[in-house]
C-alpha cells in the first residue's frame, strides 16, 4: 500500500524584532535614523529614493531589483531609470507599479 504523502504549506518564519527596532522603541527614536536600516521614500508612483542600497541585482526598463543588505527590494513598472547611484543612495524614476520586498 502506497502511503499518500500529504502536501503541507511551508511554515512562515516567525517575526523576530531586530536590535535596531528594539533600540528605536526604547529610546523613542525614528526607525529610519538607526544605523544599517534601509530607508525608502516614495514621491507618488513616479520617484523612489532608496538609502542603504548595497548593490543592483537586476536592471532593465521594467524591473529594478536592489540589494538592501538583509533584504531585497524590487520595483516593477515601465520606463524605469536610475537617476543617480552614489554613497549607497539610489534614485529611481519612472512609472512605478509595485514595490516588493523579497
Amino acid at each position, binding site marked *: 500500500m502506497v502511503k499518500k504523502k500529504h502536501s503541507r504549506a511551508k511554515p512562515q518564519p516567525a517575526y523576530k524584532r531586530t536590535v535596531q527596532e528594539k533600540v528605536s522603541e526604547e529610546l523613542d527614536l525614528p526607525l529610519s535614523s538607526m544605523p544599517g536600516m534601509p530607508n525608502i521614500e516614495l514621491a507618488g508612483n513616479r520617484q523612489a529614493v532608496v538609502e542603504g542600497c548595497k548593490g543592483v541585482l537586476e*536592471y532593465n526598463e521594467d524591473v529594478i531589483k536592489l540589494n538592501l543588505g538583509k533584504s531585497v527590494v524590487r520595483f516593477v513598472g515601465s520606463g524605469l*531609470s536610475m537617476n543617480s*547611484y552614489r554613497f549607497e543612495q539610489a534614485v529611481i524614476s519612472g512609472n512605478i507599479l509595485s514595490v516588493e520586498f523579497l
Partner: protein
Amino acid sequence: MFLFRFFRWLLGYVRFTAEGGFPERFINLCTNNGIVIWNLKSCSGVLYANTSINGYRNIRPVAKKSGMKVRIFRRYGLPFFLHRHRRRVGLLLGIAAFLALVAFLSGMIWNIRVTGNEKVRDDIILNAFAQSGVYVGVRKKNLDAQEIEKAALNKLDSLLWVSLNIDGSTAVIEVREKVDAPPVEDDDSPSNIVAAESGQVVVLEPYEGTAVVSVGTAVNKGDLIIGSVTENKDGTVSFHHARGYVVARTEQKIESKQNFHEKSTVYSAVRKHYTLHFFGLNIPIGPCIEPKDNYEVYDSESRLEIQGIILPVSITRRHFLICEEKEGQITSEQAQLMATESLINNSSVNLKTAKVLDENFRLIKSDKSIIVSGHYVCNKNIGLEKPLQVEHGG
C-alpha cells in the same frame, strides 16, 4: 540644481551607451570603483548613462569585466567646446579678453548710494566724498574707508556719523544727521504781554504777572495787557516774565489785486543736449550750443537699471528753455477769479489760528485792475511777549 549642472558642464561629461553583458554588474562595479554615473536609462537592452571625463577614462576595465561594450553617445561641456574650437585663436582671445575685462571692471566702483539723510542733500554728501576719493570709476583697492570717512565727516558739519561700505561695485554711504538741541527759553528775563493787534478782549487768563486790562476792554496795537511788574506787600516791586492767554475780537481786512494787463514768461522753444555716461566717461552726443536769448536750463538723468541694480550707464538730458516775456490781456472774469483765488490763499495763511465769526467781501473794479477785499471779524490770540529793559540801581 542649476549650479550643479553648471559645474558639470564646466568640467565636461559624456553620455555613453553600454550593451551586451550584465548591466547590473556593470553598475555595481562602477560604484565600487568610484566611477560616478548618473541618468541611467535602459532602452531595448542598451544602457544609456552619463559620466565625467575621468570616469569614462576608467570605465574600460569595468566594462570588460561585466562583458559590456561601451561607446560614447555624445560629449557635453566646456572642455569639449574649447577642444573643438582650439584652432580659432580669435575666439579664445575674445573669451580671455572678456574675462579679463569683467575682472578689471568688477574692481571698480560703479554706483554710489546714500542712505540715512533727510535734511542734507545727496549731492552735497556725494561732493564731499568725491573730494575724499570716492567717485564713480575709482579702483576699490585704493579706498581706505576709515580715512575717507574721517575726511568726509570733517567737510560735512551737519552730519554726526558717516560710514562707507563697499558692496560689490556699489559704495553705500550711510549717514546720521546732527539733531540740534531745542532752544532754551530765557524764562527769567522780565517781559510784558502786549496786544499784537487792536480789538476787544474776550478771554484773559494771566498765568504770571498782573493783568492791566479786563475782559471787554478795547485795546490798541501795542497796548499793555499783562504787566511784568508786581507790587509786593512791603512796597517794593518785583519783575516777572509775564505769561498769559489773551483772545480778542479783532477786525481784519485782506485785499487781493489783479491787473488786466499782465506780464508773463512764455517758453517759446526747448532745445535738448544729450550726454552719455559710460563707465565713468562723459561722451557728449552732438555739439552743445547754448542759446543767445534768455533761457532757463535744467538737467534730467536716466540710468540703466536691471532688476534694481543700477548700472554705470546713463544719459543726461540738458534742457534749454528759451523764455520770452509777453504782455497779455486777461478778461474781467479771469482777473476776478485770479484775485479771489489769491484772497482765499492769503486769508487761509493769515487767519490760520483765528476763529472767524463774520466775513464780508467787496469787489472794486477799475480800468486797469480788479480788487477783491475781505473783511473778517474773528477771535484771535493777540498776546505778544515784549522784553522789558530793566536798569538795576547801584
